[in-house]
């Protein structure tokens, strides 16, 4: 086998992770840190996996039941308005950061503009009622904190979405999602490939693709274009599960690897060591942002951790923690690889971190008046 073939057929990241997971594997009793690592790792995975599965299935349902035309017809004509609506769509469709990635991937495939997709990606996990409720509870119904978090999260999502839309075209930013006119031939599954026209042999024909490295999602038996027969509910449901399964398979391993890195950070980072630097306002913001990236907490839980730093870290640093975590952490960084090109990811990360830093800095400057 040629070296090129081996390279194409081997993912180094999973292979590297498997070796690391073996090294850190908890064996017997005694190694307390490894036991803690295992507990934290399994916890993060169990917490996130239901949302990941739901997200993948919702993505599959969108793929199977919603046509590109319908999505396009639902969007406002003005681009900026689409971005503004997308950033607060989480209020109607509340999703956490694990679920939103596969949904956004499918929505992009259905023609949602890049800027709006990014706005939903970043806004969905912050601007939603569940996160608002958990923030309210964590901060003992201190409503200014809840409103500030929601408003800042919304603003960051809108601004980042608009800027990304200005910098990149969809082709430059998004991995091939195989745009389609209907649920039939659309393929945005695990690998980069181009679906090709099916060879029509009958009313139910597998969609064939040219990808060498491709999963089986394009081989669902569905009616082909031109066929008079319409797909029934069962067939569409089967197609939804097929697409969902592929989405889960293609993005799930990123979640696992990210969760493992988070667990390592969670196990070995001494939180009290952060406290000695809390006196310096902007440094404390940076520290809390770093912690949010490393800990990979769910957006529905991170407020409780942020609140545990009350009296220790300034409000601006707590807000930085709550604004960073839902939109950028190690787990998400890996999951974004499944949707965006490396250049787009780098730009997205720079924009997110800059926006959070500026927002938190402004909060720090006027915190005496707000919090």
């Amino acid at each position: 086998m040629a070296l090129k073939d081996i390279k194409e057929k081997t993912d180094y990241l999973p292979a590297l992770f498997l070796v690391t997971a073996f090294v850190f594997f908890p064996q017997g009793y005694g190694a307390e840190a490894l036991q803690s690592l295992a507990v934290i790792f399994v916890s993060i995975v169990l917490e996130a996996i239901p949302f990941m599965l739901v997200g993948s299935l919702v993505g599959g349902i969108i793929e199977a039941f919603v046509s590109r035309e319908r999505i396009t017809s639902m969007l406002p004509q003005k681009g900026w308005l689409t971005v503004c609506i997308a950033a607060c769509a989480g209020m109607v469709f509340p999703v956490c950061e694990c679920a939103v990635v596969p949904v956004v991937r499918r929505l992009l495939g259905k023609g949602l503009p890049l800027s709006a997709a990014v706005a939903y990606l970043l806004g969905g996990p912050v601007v939603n009622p569940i996160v608002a409720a958990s923030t309210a509870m964590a901060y003992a119904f201190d409503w200014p904190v809840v409103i500030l978090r929601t408003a800042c999260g919304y603003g960051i999502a809108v601004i980042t979405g608009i800027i990304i839309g200005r910098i990149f075209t969809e082709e430059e930013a998004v991995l091939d999602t195989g745009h389609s006119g209907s649920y039939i031939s659309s393929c945005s599954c695990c690998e980069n490939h181009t679906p090709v026209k099916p060879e029509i042999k009958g009313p139910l024909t597998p969609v064939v693709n040219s990808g060498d490295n491709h999963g089986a999602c394009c081989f669902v038996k569905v009616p082909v274009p031109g066929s008079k027969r319409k797909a029934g509910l069962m067939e569409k449901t089967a197609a939804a599960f097929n697409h969902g399964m592929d989405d889960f398979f293609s993005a799930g391993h990123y979640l696992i690897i990210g969760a493992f890195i988070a667990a390592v950070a969670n196990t070995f980072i001494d939180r009290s060591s952060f406290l000695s630097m809390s006196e310096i306002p902007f440094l404390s913001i940076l520290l809390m942002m770093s912690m949010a990236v490393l800990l990979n907490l769910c957006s529905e839980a991170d407020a409780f951790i942020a609140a545990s730093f009350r009296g220790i870290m300034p409000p601006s640093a707590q807000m930085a923690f709550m604004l960073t975590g839902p939109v950028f952490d190690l787990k998400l960084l890996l999951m974004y690889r499944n949707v965006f090109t490396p250049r787009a990811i780098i730009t997205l990360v720079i924009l997110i971190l800059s926006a959070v830093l500026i927002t938190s800095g402004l909060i720090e400057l006027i915190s005496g008046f707000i919090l």
Partner: protein
Amino acid sequence: MKRADIGMKRLLYVFLFFAWSLFLLFLIAGKGYMAFLRPEFGVFLAIALFIAGGYMITAVFRFSTQGVNMSVVSRTLVLLIPILYCIAAKDSILGSQAFMQRYTGSFGQESRYSNLSGNTENDPDKKETILDIYLKPDLFRGKHVSVMGMIIHDEELKQHFDGKKTAVYRFLINCCAADAVPLAVALDGEDLENLKGDQWVLVEGVFDIGTVKDEKYPVILKPVITPVETPAFPYLY
């Protein structure tokens, strides 16, 4: 593409989702997930079980012409790693190592836990927990309390507990063990060094609130300590 390769890929998918379905079913049925998550997460795991089961059935009937390659195998293995870790870490809980990484010594900000009812809220006859003490420290001050938890000795605790280096503690889970917060109460008594670290104990004594460097800290005076079995649900929720 060889037929055997195609069959292998289908088998991998089926096995992956079968393993996850079985794993989730096992965790839900035995409430084993509560060693990692809040009880309310059982509903989410049940939804996950339904979807994983659906994916498994889909994989069984899937029509595929693509075979297996290293990428598919490695991704499948990655997705199975959490199950292996869970099996290996059976009966493991967060202990003093996690405590020392997470404890920041803050006390007296009970509003932080105001969303939690604690134990005595619902049933006054129940024994109080460390969470109850954190929720209403003034209510318990000067009263005889009886709390269960693990023992920790550490020199670093002296700065938080006015020179006392032994405490009883438990973790409070907000969502999952990753965000678990240690709640500790200092012990002020004799012969505490003889207690083994991370040993589960029942501590009985008089609760008080001490002060060190203008910061409050919880303490149980003249504790009577009895070793106990690890409780079925070691965390507070």
